[in-house]
């Protein structure tokens, strides 16, 4: 596996180019190709979990002269999240996307997005990260506008503008870092920054990065694009955007840069915690008033990402005890994975509902659990899980984050997190009451269960919600542990260059 690490991007890229050629001959080619490629990637990603950390030099150029790819606990965890959810979203798309035209271009863009995210996660080079970030972003801009309706286009344009601002900020940050240190290689950069220290130029770069990656992760002052963009996209894309993209392009990059390159820093930690608390509360309150199924889910994404951000911020604080930092980080990573699972479940569920009923307005839905038992049950499990009801997975991750906050002495943030937990519960109960339970409107009496290709991913994700909740110690404890130590042990990351 080590020798073939770059295949995580090379396979989807080559497959995309090939798919569009084959699609000129037969239209089925795109479906088959996308299914096979994402299945292969998911298997490879799961296989990566059993690898010790290593580095790969592209073109056999010794770092820092060539491009370095790095594999450690965190990148393996993210690879699993990206590729498994991507695979399930492709299965869902096989049926769902028949309502749209140009299916082969859809799958091409989908695979490019996966390639971009994989590229961001596996790379150990700043500029390379930017390039793959742009691939994923541009593919997602186009996918948001895929329906070419009025709202879709406007949402896509807004997303493109703010994404452009984010990319600009990130690239400028990289340029200043290059000028300061003369290198782009991340471990090498970490060593150089250790020598330079936290000067004004470095803090300026940090501000640019927080702005750029904050926009990509959609933390609250930078969140304007998400509530438009995520609901406008086709359902599997909403699931990918909310479930994976904001994490791979926003959260992962923030974690990688702040922990492994810059090192733990009290100022950045404070800012991140504040942004996290803000996103958690503001977006949670805004979610209550929504009447659109997907729009409510989009606001709740921002709110839940706030939990992750606050946990990252706590762990980033050098004054926090190491045990507290470790606990917060485990909670944050666990919540990140959980959120990927239940948010993609909920978005796919909303897609299945929309596919059968033709609407996502909460006022026009109701009583669907009798007509669509499988979809309904999965969505119910997902919403209980995100609302933090025991024994589902969302409860445990929120609990860990809150305990870490209280242990670290952040009483205000801790009680805020509890409060937002109740707000989440409230609006998801509202969501359940207005879609799954209650009276069935007369217009929907003829609704049938969604097709198998759409219910299968829902059932798998719902099962994951239960399993990850009950079997925390057995299943993910060690994975999260590996990811956590990859972040907290900056020295090991820097030594990759020397030791590898």
């Amino acid at each position: 596996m080590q020798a073939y690490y770059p295949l995580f991007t090379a396979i989807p890229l080559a497959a995309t180019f090939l798919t569009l050629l084959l699609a000129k001959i037969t239209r089925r080619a795109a479906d088959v190709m996308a299914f096979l490629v994402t299945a292969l990637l998911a298997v490879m990603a799961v296989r990566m979990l059993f690898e010790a950390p290593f580095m790969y030099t592209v073109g056999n150029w010794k770092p820092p002269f060539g491009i370095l790819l790095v594999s450690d606990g965190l990148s393996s965890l993210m690879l699993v999240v990206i590729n498994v959810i991507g695979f399930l979203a492709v299965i869902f798309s096989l049926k769902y996307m028949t309502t749209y035209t140009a299916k082969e271009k859809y799958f091409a863009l989908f695979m490019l997005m996966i390639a971009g995210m994989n590229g961001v996660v596996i790379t150990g080079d700043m500029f390379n990260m930017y390039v793959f970030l742009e691939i994923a972003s541009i593919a997602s801009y186009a996918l948001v506008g895929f329906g070419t309706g009025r709202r879709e286009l406007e949402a896509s344009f807004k997303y493109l503008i703010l994404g452009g601002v984010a990319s600009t900020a990130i690239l400028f940050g990289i340029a200043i870092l290059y000028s300061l240190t003369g290198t782009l290689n991340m471990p090498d950069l970490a060593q150089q920054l250790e020598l330079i220290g936290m000067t004004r130029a470095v803090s300026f770069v940090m501000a640019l990065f927080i702005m750029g990656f904050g926009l990509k992760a959609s933390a609250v002052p930078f969140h304007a694009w998400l509530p438009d963009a995520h609901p406008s996209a086709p359902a599997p894309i909403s699931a990918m955007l909310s479930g994976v993209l904001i994490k791979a392009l926003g959260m992962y990059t923030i974690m990688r840069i702040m922990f492994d390159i810059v090192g733990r820093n009290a100022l950045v930690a404070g800012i991140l915690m504040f942004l996290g608390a803000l996103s958690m509360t503001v977006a949670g309150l805004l979610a209550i008033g929504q009447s659109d199924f997907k729009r409510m889910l989009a606001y709740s994404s921002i709110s839940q990402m706030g939990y992750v951000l606050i946990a990252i911020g706590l762990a980033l604080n050098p004054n926090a005890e190491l045990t507290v930092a470790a606990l917060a980080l485990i909670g944050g990573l666990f919540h990140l994975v959980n959120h990927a699972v239940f948010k993609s479940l909920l978005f796919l569920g909303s897609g299945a509902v929309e596919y059968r009923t033709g609407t996502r307005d909460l006022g026009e839905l109701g009583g669907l659990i009798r007509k669509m038992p499988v979809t309904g049950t999965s969505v119910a499990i997902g919403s209980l899980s995100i609302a933090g009801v025991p024994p589902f997975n969302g409860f445990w991750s929120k609990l860990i984050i809150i305990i870490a906050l209280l242990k670290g002495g952040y009483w205000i943030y801790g009680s805020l997190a509890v409060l937002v937990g109740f707000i989440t519960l409230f609006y998801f109960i509202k969501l359940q009451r207005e879609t799954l339970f209650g009276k069935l409107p007369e217009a929907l009496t003829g609704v049938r269960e969604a097709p198998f290709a759409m219910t299968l991913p829902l059932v798998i994700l719902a099962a994951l919600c239960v399993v990850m909740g009950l079997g925390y110690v057995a299943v993910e404890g060690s994975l999260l542990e590996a990811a956590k130590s990859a972040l907290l042990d900056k020295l090991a990351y820097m030594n990759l260059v020397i030791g590898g």
Partner: protein
Amino acid sequence: MILYFLSLVLLVMGLYCLIAKKNIVKKIVGIVITEYSINLFLILVGYRKDGVAPILLKGMHHGELVQHGVDPLPQALVLTSIVIGLGTLALMVALCLRMYEKYKTFDMSKINKLRG
């Protein structure tokens, strides 16, 4: 120093145009200007006094290149970033034309109103 700062001024102007202007074409103009500023900054950062282009020509002494050649890495980065900018621009123009066809206007505030 002042050169670096001026390229940052250019960046800020582009960002202002991108965020505050209502017209879609103006937003495209803004993103083009921000790209220029970044490319300019990268090339400025890589310049060496009395530098020569990082290309070994026939009959040129290799030592001269090592002594005076400007930093080639930012140039490779800028080439990449120019192409990325071109791609973004193509997508933006496509979106802009499509939105004009739907709304018959380039004005974002009118578009917001039309959407209701």
